[in-house]
């Protein structure tokens, strides 16, 4: 794949038209947090028939599973699927990357985990409404004292009590936390062993359960269109019907599979930010005049544009490669996914910072939009595994072969 197909471009243009009409006019309200992103995301899904597509591929996958066939679990809808997933992500990230975080966590992480490890009943009950965007999903793993050491440092616990579990603990930095209807919650089985050795359990919780508190959105540096909150659980009682299967290697392995999907997604997000920053920077370099000439004629400005173009090409190639691999049904190694995310995140952050610099004083003003993208892009280097974690994952994967 060296470029988007004609069909891809039609999808891109249609989504772009929708974003111009529906998202851009609401950007201030999204950025102030006054407007939660979910109605817009639902509208996106409905407008382009993504909800119906999700529903029918869900039912097809479920029917396959029930008839005992070993389906390609968790895989997206074949050929055009990858581009169809990536293009809305790229286009949304040109305006409001937070919308993609809100969307991706519900679909990719919350629904994705249930689709990989749930029973047919659990999938129907919780994953389907997330996949159609009818409901809002959160994926709760990070705690105040864990972060990158997510499993080792995890303190949330589940204690067996008769047929039920009693869950306690707190989670933080939870995307969609304030508005989530469905929460995939990781904790450790309290069986008296050393906390570091305890089994990881994953539950599906619903908004409004006794003892479950979802806080208001936290204040952040960027990604304001994506509400992030804390969860506090105090003696929340969950039946075994809410417990997801451990799967091979337990909850840890499932979470790691999510890392790969998530990391590829971040590369697409980075591409959106880079393309937009480059476009805005080129326009500005051509129209802004100083000392009687356009600033694009100055070599220091040219250097910035050239570096942005190099980043755009590299990240686009990574995204294309990911799409090709999905089409070929070839999985990415953890090292590859991590390398892709590491590079793309750093490139987006750097490009956006340089765009602010290229715009000078105007760049520091919200009106010119690049400052928002620069704040948003910084998050790419932190969430879905920090740069530092990506580096260790790449090295660990290479050294384990």
């Amino acid at each position, binding site marked *: 794949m060296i470029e988007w197909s*004609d*069909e891809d471009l*039609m*999808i891109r243009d*249609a989504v772009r*038209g*929708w974003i111009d009409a529906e998202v851009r006019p609401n950007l201030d309200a999204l950025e102030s947090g006054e407007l939660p992103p979910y109605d817009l995301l639902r509208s996106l899904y409905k*407008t*382009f*028939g*993504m909800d*119906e*597509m999700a529903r029918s591929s869900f039912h097809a996958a479920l029917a396959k599973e029930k008839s005992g066939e070993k389906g390609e679990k968790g895989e997206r809808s074949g050929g*055009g699927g990858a581009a*169809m997933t990536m293009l809305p992500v790229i286009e949304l990230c040109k305006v409001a990357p937070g919308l993609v975080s809100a969307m991706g966590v519900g679909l990719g992480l919350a629904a994705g985990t249930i689709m990989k490890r749930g029973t047919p009943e659990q999938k129907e009950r919780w994953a389907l409404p997330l996949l159609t965007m009818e409901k809002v999903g959160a994926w709760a793993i990070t705690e105040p004292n864990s972060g990158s050491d997510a499993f080792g440092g995890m303190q949330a616990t589940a204690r067996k009590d008769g047929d039920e579990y009693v869950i306690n603990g707190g989670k933080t930095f939870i995307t969609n936390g304030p508005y989530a209807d469905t929460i995939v919650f990781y904790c450790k089985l309290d069986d008296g062993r050393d906390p570091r050795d305890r089994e990881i359990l994953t539950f599906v919780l619903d908004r409004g359960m006794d003892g479950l508190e979802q806080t208001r959105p936290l204040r952040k540096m960027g990604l304001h269109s994506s509400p992030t909150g804390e969860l506090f659980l105090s003696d929340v009682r969950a039946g075994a019907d809410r417990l997801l299967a451990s799967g091979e290697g337990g909850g840890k392995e499932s979470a790691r599979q999510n890392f790969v999907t998530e990391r590829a997604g971040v590369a697409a997000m980075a591409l959106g930010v880079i393309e937009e920053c480059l476009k805005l920077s080129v326009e500005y370099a051509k129209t802004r005049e100083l000392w009687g000439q356009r600033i694009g004629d100055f070599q220091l400005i040219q250097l910035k544009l050239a570096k942005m173009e190099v980043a755009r090409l590299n990240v686009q190639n990574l995204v294309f490669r990911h799409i090709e691999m999905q089409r070929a049904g070839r999985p990415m190694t953890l090292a590859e996914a991590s390398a892709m995310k590491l590079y793309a995140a750093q490139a987006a952050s750097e490009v956006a910072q340089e765009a602010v610099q290229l715009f000078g004083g105007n760049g520091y003003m919200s009106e010119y939009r690049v400052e928002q993208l620069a704040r948003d892009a910084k998050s790419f280097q932190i969430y879905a595994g920090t740069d530092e974690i990506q580096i260790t994952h790449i090295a660990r994967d290479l050294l384990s072969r």
Partner: protein
Amino acid sequence: MNIVVLVKQVPDTESPRKLKSDDSTLDRAAADGVINELDEYAIEEALKIKEAHGGEVTVLTMGPAKATDSIRKALAMGADKAVHLVDDGLAGSDALQTSYAIQQALGRTGFDIVILGSESTDARTGVLAAMLSERLGVPQITLANKVEIDGSAIKAQRVTDYGYDRVEATLPAVVSVVEKINEPRYPSFKGIMAAKKKPVETLGLGDAGIDAAQVGLANAATEVVDFADAPARAQGQIVTDEGDGGAKIAEFLASKKFV
């Protein structure tokens, strides 16, 4: 119901539109082609009629080869098939000739209702619906902002300077629409994927039974005698506020009869 929607590809209104200096025709290469905006409303109305009454929606486009982009988009929105009238002999045709060529093409597709936008953003003559209905000998309902079909009767609201007229006719008929009639849908992803597989029939002059002597720039009934670029915007008038700014603004608005 056999619904035919006329779709014209025009230069993107966002880009500067130009005429060619050699033959005074539109420079189609100078800008990206898009579906004429009002035609999107015509497509939407055609799809709505189909959804309510059944039948088939055929896109009919006259234009150069690159107009296939616009045809694909109309198919992606949900039209069933398309007819593309494309021939070098058609280049430079004026509205009168276009109405003749489309009449001939409609002879092949047949129709119960022909829907089109009330004007195009490039030439803006706005006469095609009237000419076409005259040639076809069927009722014309122009500038419709509401259309209802009841058996073989078509009822519509027709926008006027003073409000709207309620008009009624018997099918088959030609209907031109204005932007108040509906909100055109976006093509769904599924629609985009399906568009590629939908039939597009390409017709040349001979296929459509069009007499080459009646179309094309050389045979046009109208001629572009002269044209000029739009004048550059003049420098605005700067009024310094010396305490009487408000009064001056009011004076200005009153002098131009804005208030």
